[in-house]
């Protein structure tokens, strides 16, 4: 099981693999600190001789990045809260509340998994346009605020909890909202953190829908603002563009460093929980 190839070969492969992933990230950082001369030389300079930190301020000022940040934070924050609340309430209802035809409702929920948001961009655009929601936060947020997969994951999780916990709460005279808030959520914290983080990452990076739902620069989110800067400056300003790239990826990278386990397990959870 363990021994494929000699130690030297294995370490060489390990280092090559690491380089394939580390070098591009290092390259962004290095380029973001280069002045124009060092960018346009061949062979390339690995470490800028005089780090040019002004690339960052120039990038920040050549497009309204403050505004892009604000837009991304608002749409991510509200989008995530709505999605997680919807996931929790739906999963709770499907597991702990009696209702005739509950299983049919669950199947209808599962059907939504088959319709990724990419398939419905056109009719959804027509809907928000007719509501007058183009270039609004609700137009960006609401189409992605419903949740099927997260509700499914939480449902599966709730089903694994011992029923004594719920019965004990019931005997203490707790209502459903109290049981949910004081009993269920605290013991489901790791699962909730996972669902929340996956939602944060997805919404922060979302590209296609915010691109369609907005057309004024002031309402753009970070990833779209970044591509806007690139279209403006083109390949003549790689230093600025790489600095702006750091604006977009840094918050998510920090999140990843802090909660790597949760994020990885959340993004790959479909594999282990059938």
């Amino acid at each position, binding site marked *: 099981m363990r021994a494929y190839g000699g130690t030297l070969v294995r370490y060489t492969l*390990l280092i090559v693999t*690491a380089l394939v992933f580390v070098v591009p990230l290092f390259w962004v950082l290095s380029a973001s600190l280069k002045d124009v001369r060092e960018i346009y030389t061949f062979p390339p300079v690995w470490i800028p001789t005089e780090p040019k930190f002004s690339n960052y301020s120039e990038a920040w000022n050549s497009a309204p990045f403050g505004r892009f940040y604000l837009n991304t934070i608002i749409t991510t924050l509200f989008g995530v809260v709505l999605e997680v609340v919807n996931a929790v309430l739906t999963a709770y209802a499907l597991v702990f509340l*009696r209702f005739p035809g509950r299983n049919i409702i669950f199947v209808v929920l599962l059907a939504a998994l088959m319709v990724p948001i990419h398939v419905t961009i056109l009719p*959804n*655009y027509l809907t928000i346009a007719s509501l007058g929601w183009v270039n609004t936060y609700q137009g960006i947020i609401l189409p992605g605020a419903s949740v099927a997969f997260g509700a499914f994951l939480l449902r599966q999780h709730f089903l694994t909890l011992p029923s004594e916990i719920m019965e004990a709460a019931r005997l203490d005279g707790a209502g459903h909202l109290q049981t949910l808030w004081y009993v269920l959520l605290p013991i489901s914290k790791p699962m909730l953190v996972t669902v929340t983080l996956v939602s944060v990452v997805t919404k922060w990076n979302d590209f*296609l829908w915010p691109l369609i739902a907005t057309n004024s620069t002031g309402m753009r989110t970070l990833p779209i603002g970044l591509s806007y800067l690139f279209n403006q400056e083109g390949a003549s300003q790689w230093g600025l563009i790489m600095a702006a*790239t750091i604006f977009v990826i840094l918050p998510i990278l920090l*999140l990843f460093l802090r909660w790597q386990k949760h994020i990885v397990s959340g993004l790959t959870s479909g594999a282990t929980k*059938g």
Partner: protein
Amino acid sequence: MGLGKARNGLGDVKKRRIDRQHLLFLAFIAPNFLLLGIFTYWPMLYQIYLSLTRWDMLAPKKTFVGLDNYTNMFGGQEFWGVLFKTFYFMGAVVAGSVVLGLAVAILLNQRLRGRNFVRSVTFAPVILSGAAVGLVWAYIFDPNYGLLRTLLEFIGVSSPDWLADTRFAMPAIIIVYLWKSIGFAVVIYLAGLQNISKDLYEAARVDGANSWVRFRHVTLPQLSPVTFFVVLTTIINSFQAFDIIAVMTGGGPAGATTTLIWYIYQEGFIAFRAGVAAAAAIIMFLLLLVITVLQVRYAQRGVHYK
């Protein structure tokens, strides 16, 4: 919202409690299903109607044209080209995810120093913005000042103009997409490798199997459900690869990277042919439906085995 204390006879309370539970159930699922209705179920139905019309998204009336959009799409060359590029991209990405994903997973499954670090860096791109990753690689592919030119000249090859050359644009997109998403397959394969019973390897060793035979006759067959999952998930995700294409090539040059999702966007939001965009979206939905049905059937089987 307490459930109320028993004042009447026990039977009454129970009945009232159930009715209140029904209301609570509806209240809990209402927001989610309202949104799903408006932005998932209804648009899918509405899209079927749109796909049967000709409309520039401005005119007050849509013209009903029956199946014309479909027959035009399948009767002309452009859409077949789009499908070909979609499957070219998908096939390469699936093959790459399986082969490289498994190879890296096997490497990281060995007892090597620093493997946790490498595991983290292979996964990190998965969570980064596709637009950001696309731009980083557009710079790396730059035929004059890019990093890749250095590497290629080091081995004596001159760099193509990757993103402006119809032959190289799609391979470039595939490389970037694989770089960004391979960590997913690696994690899934690693979990799969760790689930293989050590007894199987012991038995094979006793039978005198060398490492290749053990890989061929123990590892690969034991991993086949994992591979199936990786393949299906990669297919589904590859349909939705939009941001990398948007920032790197915009579907070009000369349509060389126009996959189905880019075609839908282009027809709907650049050419304003709503009917054609809707018809293409229906085709994409049907393709996804086939794959999802396969996946659900597989997932149910997986549950039974547990």
